[in-house]
């Protein structure tokens, strides 16, 4: 145990911009990912605010219908491909995975850097699409609309194609790292649960993303050459596109939520100083989710005209996938029993996650119901549901992880008071914005509507006002986190008294991660045994 903070660490061991741009250190790459992801989140958030502002009353306020359609497409595409899919794996995962494993780096450091630059290239394509007549197809790019609209669909989809490769390489790297770079004694059932969740995530990234790639290739070729597979005017089938798209994009939802669940397992154990309840079941449920998630994509197509037999199979499997998620929630709550609960920022976000993920999950059960989905499909109910899972689940867990590992990454403590204030704003703002949308949706308000019936106006206005509260929360967070980099108190090596390996090294860690290769002799959450 090295509590004496050494003066050199991965941040200051080498200096100059080249030492960052050409670094092979997974920690620096993770940090750069974090920066880009934060920028993307800001951009996507900006579009969200603009969209909600437009929707404060029916008819035109600031934008035309076309501009509105382009903005919701950009909001969706940026938030999905540039923010939420890479958010946890590429930034926190990159930084923490080798540390938790006790490895010096990921298996392929150069591939890791390449994946960062591929991400940047993909982002450039998306930004280019933004200025060159942004796509107005929605992030789902459904044909034949996407193959006939005159906006720049090609640059936007090529951006998503390139980002897919970034995601594949990250996933591939993680799988190999977890298989091959475990130090002596680190058996599979001694892996921290965050590592388990990243492993399950990586499986999906490697198996599903190529199908997105080929779907996009076919869409681009459809526009350029008229390949015709998805174009009904040429004898193709638009529903086949939906199968192709959702074969990736449904598992992608689990690329988003699985690492979030991993963070929650880490945080609840560390903040309660308690060994996680039912470790094996949580670990295996991650794998179960990853596998079953491939077989449920058709629940996006219940009213699309797919065969009713297929719909029934997909609905059945969708219900199966809900069980492992439920198991995790019950295990987390049980972990709290007779713990010693530290109510600092990571735990606050855990509590928020628990509540909002329940709402997202239970509304998911409603949407998986074949008959109920007929009414709710493509309404604001769906919008609210996936925002509860993606923002209330993934993003909140991301924030929890960010606060949990911030001292390790930056070596500074943030202001616990301001963290609480920001948390409060985010909780209130988020629920104002999105709970309202459940009501709108079940009352019949369809999604992707620029204009709407007057009777929906009060609820829309309330939802819009919620986004401002939410925005204030995120701004506060940006300020105190940036402030902590300059003015924060130096962080101890292990501020939470956690037991996983990343806390056994300095904050921030040295470039080689550990002074000596750790030898693992116990399970990851042995809070019972005396700590050194």
């Amino acid at each position, binding site marked *: 145990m090295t509590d004496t903070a050494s003066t050199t660490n991965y941040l200051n061991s080498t200096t100059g911009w080249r030492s960052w741009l050409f670094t092979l250190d997974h920690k620096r790459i993770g940090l750069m990912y974090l920066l880009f992801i934060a920028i993307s989140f800001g951009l996507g958030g900006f579009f969200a605010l603009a969209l909600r502002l437009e929707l404060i009353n029916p008819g035109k306020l600031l934008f035309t219908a076309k501009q509105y359609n382009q903005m919701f497409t950009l909001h969706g595409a940026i938030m999905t491909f540039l923010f939420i899919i890479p958010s946890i794996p590429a930034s926190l995962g990159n930084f923490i995975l080798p540390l938790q494993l006790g490895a010096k780096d990921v298996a392929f450091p150069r591939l890791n850097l390449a994946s960062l630059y591929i991400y940047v290239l993909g982002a450039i394509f998306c930004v280019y699409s933004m200025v060159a007549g942004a796509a107005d197809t929605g992030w789902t790019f459904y044909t034949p609309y996407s193959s006939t609209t005159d906006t720049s669909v090609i640059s936007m989809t090529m951006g998503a194609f390139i980002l897919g490769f970034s995601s594949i390489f990250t996933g591939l790297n993680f799988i190999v790292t977890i298989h091959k770079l475990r130090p002596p004694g680190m058996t599979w059932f001694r892996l921290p649960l965050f590592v388990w969740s990243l492993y399950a995530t990586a499986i999906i990234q490697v198996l599903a993303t190529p199908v997105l790639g080929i779907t996009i290739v076919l869409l681009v070729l459809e526009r350029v050459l008229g390949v015709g597979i998805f174009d009904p*005017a*040429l004898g193709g089938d638009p529903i*086949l596109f939906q199968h192709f798209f959702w074969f990736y994009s449904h598992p992608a939802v689990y690329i988003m939520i699985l690492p979030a669940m991993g963070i929650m397992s880490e945080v609840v154990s560390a903040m309660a100083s308690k060994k996680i309840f039912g470790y094996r079941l949580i670990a295996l449920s991650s794998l179960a989710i990853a596998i079953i998630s491939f*077989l449920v994509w058709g629940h996006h197509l219940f009213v699309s005209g797919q065969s009713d*037999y*297929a719909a029934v199979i997909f609905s059945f499997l969708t219900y199966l996938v809900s069980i492992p998620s439920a198991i995790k929630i019950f295990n987390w709550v049980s972990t709290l029993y007779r713990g010693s609960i530290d109510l600092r920022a990571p735990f606050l976000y855990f509590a928020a996650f628990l509540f909002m993920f329940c709402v997202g999950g239970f509304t998911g059960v409603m949407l998986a119901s074949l008959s109920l989905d007929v009414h709710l499909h493509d309404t604001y109910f769906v919008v609210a549901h996936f925002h509860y899972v993606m923002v209330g689940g993934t993003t909140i867990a991301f924030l929890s992880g960010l606060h949990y590992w911030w001292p390790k990454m930056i070596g500074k403590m943030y202001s616990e008071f301001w963290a609480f204030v920001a948390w409060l704003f985010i909780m209130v703002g988020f629920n104002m914005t999105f709970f309202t949308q459940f009501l709108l949706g079940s009352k019949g308000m369809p999604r992707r509507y620029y204009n709407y019936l007057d009777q929906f106006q009060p609820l829309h206005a309330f939802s819009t006002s919620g986004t401002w509260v939410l925005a204030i929360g995120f701004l506060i967070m940006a300020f105190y986190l940036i402030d902590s980099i300059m003015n924060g108190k130096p962080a101890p090596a292990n501020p939470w008294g956690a037991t996983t390996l990343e806390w056994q090294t300095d904050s921030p860690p040295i470039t080689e991660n550990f002074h000596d290769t750790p030898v693992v002799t116990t399970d990851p959450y042995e809070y019972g045994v005396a700590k050194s």
Partner: protein
Amino acid sequence: MSQESHHDHFIVPTSVYVGALGALLILTVITVAIAQINFGSFNLIVALLVAIIKASVVMFVFMGLWWDDAFNRFAFLSSLLFLFLFFLFTFADVWFRDFRSPLESEILPIKSPVRPAVVGEKSSH
């Protein structure tokens, strides 16, 4: 790293590779020959069967899966499993899609770029 401490790779004898090559060439001839005879839809099954045998030879001999780590074998073969699931579930829709309406043909004539080859067209001028 000294040159001597190289890892203990099993070097596959040349005869095995030559045998595999011979098998692949013969199978290619067989598949082409069978295709010249018309068995109807049976042709597709035979062609796919031969292709699968050929692919197995390439995978297990040339790609060395036979001698490789069990997990590499598992990983690669599981990709085929997922591909199969993708196929199966997509076709769970495609095969059983609607009881097609008799009116279907009148809905939307497709914009076909194919110039129709009509019998007797050539003799029209």
